């Protein structure tokens, strides 16, 4: 049994934890829920030995433990999959997994053969489709997340901490992961599971602990809670059940086509994709991992060059030579892979929010400090980003707040076309709804939005129309009647059926 009691943590003036507590029984999966910046990751890091709390105690099986470092945590058989990943991008998959627990022969040499075999077994178990010698930086975000979990599981922990590991995972990967979690549970391993996807809590967790502004507000059996209860404890208010209103698409055909992608291919993932987006429309792109969604979005932006096919933007054929050209033409891009593609971690929060503007206008024109401050203050207010000071580095923000910052950065620039690749990764349910509302509002004012999301529910909620990609082709186009979870999932799995409109037509 694991118990954390009265944990306090301050970062300068920011209180990250205030008498927080958590209890996990052996062989149970404990959900740790709470809005962005409520202190979940900090709790996890305290257990992992990365954050030294200012006060509090940790007990394992009734015995008081002192965890000051990663080594201490490893000694207590605690392994962690971190929200912002602990993989080293420039090392191979195999070396990352074996890091710190190399398998040696009797003579003390690294046992290459056994290592390779065990790593391969691990990858197979997690359905990770890559070579053990591939560099981690070449893997897709979701594969990296899976690998992060695999790495933790490889350490044969008694206590496994999973911090938002499903944030970038797709439908099938989550199934695999849950299968493994059930196996581990049967072996008596306790798990702490942090997530913003509420359905997962009901599916896999036994108990739930909810945090709000650095404090533990309640914990109990999952079966005692409804979704509304959870949201209530997270936010302090009961959710409104206003159904997201669908945009009126009846006159779609007389509207201006903003993006017209014709038969593009991008080696190796995208084989033949055609799609259209009309002015003021929110177009979703669905599919399992690796079906070419990110490539198509980046091809529109100008970040990758398609080998064949053409792209029209605002009625004119375009061949952007780099993203700068795309941005100049009126495109904005929001990435969910924030470490790699969005966040400037050592720069201030203000500069990060202003980054879209920084990239756009003339290089040497006078830029007043007030303008930057005003711009970022507005965004912080509008998007409810939880920050210390605007001058703090972006790395001081919690994962979800970093993501909100990235979203704010581009929406505030009001581009003609907004491209979003898994934009709400790690954003809590409440803020996610707020972002959806803002996107709806932008669309109503004429912004065209193309969004790809790993979460099928989110995709269904936000999109007017969905293109489902399968093996680099459009497997189905869902709108109106056909835009249902069943259709979406079966199209994602490549099952042809009459419900979905065929792409070829």
């Amino acid at each position, binding site marked *: 049994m694991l118990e954390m009691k009265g944990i306090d943590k301050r*970062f*300068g003036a920011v209180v990250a934890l205030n008498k927080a507590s958590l209890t996990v029984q052996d062989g149970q999966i404990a959900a740790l829920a709470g809005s962005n910046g409520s202190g979940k990751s900090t709790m996890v*890091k305290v257990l992992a030995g*990365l*954050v*030294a*709390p*200012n*006060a509090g*105690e940790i007990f394992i099986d009734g015995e008081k433990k*002192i965890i*000051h470092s990663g080594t201490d945590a490893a000694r207590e058989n605690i392994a962690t999959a*971190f929200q*912002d990943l602990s993989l080293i991008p420039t090392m191979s998959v195999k070396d990352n997994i074996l890091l710190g627990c190399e398998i040696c022969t009797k003579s003390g040499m690294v046992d290459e053969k056994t290592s390779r075999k065990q790593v391969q077994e691990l990858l197979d178990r997690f359905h990770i489709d890559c070579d053990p010698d591939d560099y981690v930086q070449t893997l897709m975000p979701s594969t990296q997340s899976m690998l992060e979990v695999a790495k933790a599981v490889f350490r044969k922990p008694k206590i496994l901490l999973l911090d938002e590991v499903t944030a970038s995972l797709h439908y099938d990967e989550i199934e695999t992961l849950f299968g493994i979690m059930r196996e581990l549970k049967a072996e008596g391993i306790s798990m702490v599971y942090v997530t913003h996807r509420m359905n997962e809590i009901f599916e896999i967790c036994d108990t739930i602990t909810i945090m709000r502004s650095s404090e533990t507000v309640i914990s109990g059996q999952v079966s005692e809670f409804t979704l509304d209860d959870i949201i209530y404890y997270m936010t302090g208010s009961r959710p409104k059940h206003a159904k997201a209103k669908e945009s009126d698409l009846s006159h779609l055909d007389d509207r201006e086509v903003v993006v017209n992608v014709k038969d593009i291919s991008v080696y190796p993932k995208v084989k033949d994709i055609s799609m259209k987006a009309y002015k003021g429309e929110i177009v979703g792109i669905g599919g399992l991992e690796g079906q070419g969604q990110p490539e198509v979005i980046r091809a529109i*932006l100008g*970040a990758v060059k398609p080998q064949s096919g053409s792209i029209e933007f605002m009625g004119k054929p375009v061949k952007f030579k*780099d*993203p*700068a050209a*795309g*941005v*100049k033409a009126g495109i904005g*891009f929001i*990435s969910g892979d924030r470490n*790699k*593609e*969005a*966040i*400037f*971690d*050592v*720069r201030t929060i203000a*500069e990060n929010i*202003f*980054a*879209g503007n*920084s*990239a*756009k*206008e*003339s*290089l*040497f*024109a*006078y*830029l*007043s*400090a007030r303008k930057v401050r005003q711009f970022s203050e507005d965004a912080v207010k509008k998007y409810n980003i939880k920050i210390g000071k605007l001058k703090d580095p972006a790395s001081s923000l919690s994962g979800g707040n970093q993501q909100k910052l990235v979203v704010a950065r581009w929406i505030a620039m009001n581009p003609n076309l907004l491209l979003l690749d898994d934009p709400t990764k790690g954003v809590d349910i409440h803020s996610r709804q707020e972002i959806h509302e803002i996107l709806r509002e932008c669309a109503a004012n004429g912004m065209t939005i193309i969004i790809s999301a790993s979460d099928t529910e989110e995709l269904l909620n936000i999109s007017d129309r969905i293109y489902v990609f399968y093996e680099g082709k459009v497997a189905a186009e869902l709108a109106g009647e056909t835009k249902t979870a069943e259709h979406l999932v079966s199209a994602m799995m490549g099952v042809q059926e009459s419900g979905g409109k065929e792409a070829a037509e």
Partner: protein
Amino acid sequence: MSNKTMTFNPNANKDIFSKINLFVQTHTALMALIIAVVLYVVTIIINPRGLNTVAIGNIILLTIILSIPAAGQTMVLIGGGMDFSVGAVMSSTAVLTTYTMRGENGHFITVLLLSLVIGAAVGLLNGVCCVKIGLPAMIVTMAISNIVTRMQYILTQGILSGKASPLFSASVKSKIFGVIPMIVIYAIIVWPIVFYLLKRSRFGKQLYMVGNNSGAARLNGVRVTKIQIMSYVFSGMLAAFAGMLGAAYMSTARCQIFDDYAYMSLIAVIIGGTTFAGGSGTYEGSIAGSLVMVLLSNLLTTLNPTQPVRNVLNAAILILLLVLYNRGKAVRQ
């Protein structure tokens, strides 16, 4: 209860330590200034006669000269590169200045334009080789330094020739109120330009973005290579101008006279809080760092050790400073 205090005592210590660490990391310019003051006080204690207007004037003058290549170095480092050619560029334009002026007044504009063109050209070459072709910055800029140095010998045959114009020399060396050297006028022109570029223009914002996370900068619509190449070009031009001022200060200039400024500017900038990793650093820090470098050499002169001892001392102090400064930040709190 006593158990509890026991447990968390180390944390309390850690807290103070991390606070100091945080202070050092967030107030790097101020820290450099404090170090400068300490160095100066030590120097004066060892040699009270060092406290005179001539010495102070010299410190100001040398700091300003160093602060100019340091400005370019700051930009390049922020953008994720490194420029080892500033020394060679300075030497070249210094030689060019004396060679062209030949001790006569009136060639200033010609020399200025020529120098800036040379600086920009070297910078462009550096930029293209490092950024476009992707060769390691340290090696490229050193190799280009060698070429630039060869040019000095071709121009002068290695013979000390010419002299800076008296008027130009006076505009650098003569003292206002008997203390402050006239060179501050050049600082009043150059420093604000650098501050403007780094703090008040989108070029500066983009440079920081590029250095911090070039992939993210690109997807945000920043032309990464263009910005990085521009940082090298600015660095070349600033070094070229500093070389002219150096020539005016020295009156004559032999080949390779300012080659030391390559590593001196680099260390000054690092002491001022700019990191090798790119994406962070300020010019005020680099100016303070320049002051530290000048005062350090001043202190060593005062101690007057033999040259080898001096070199060892110099290196030891610098390593100490760099270790203090660039203590890698924890990846994660």
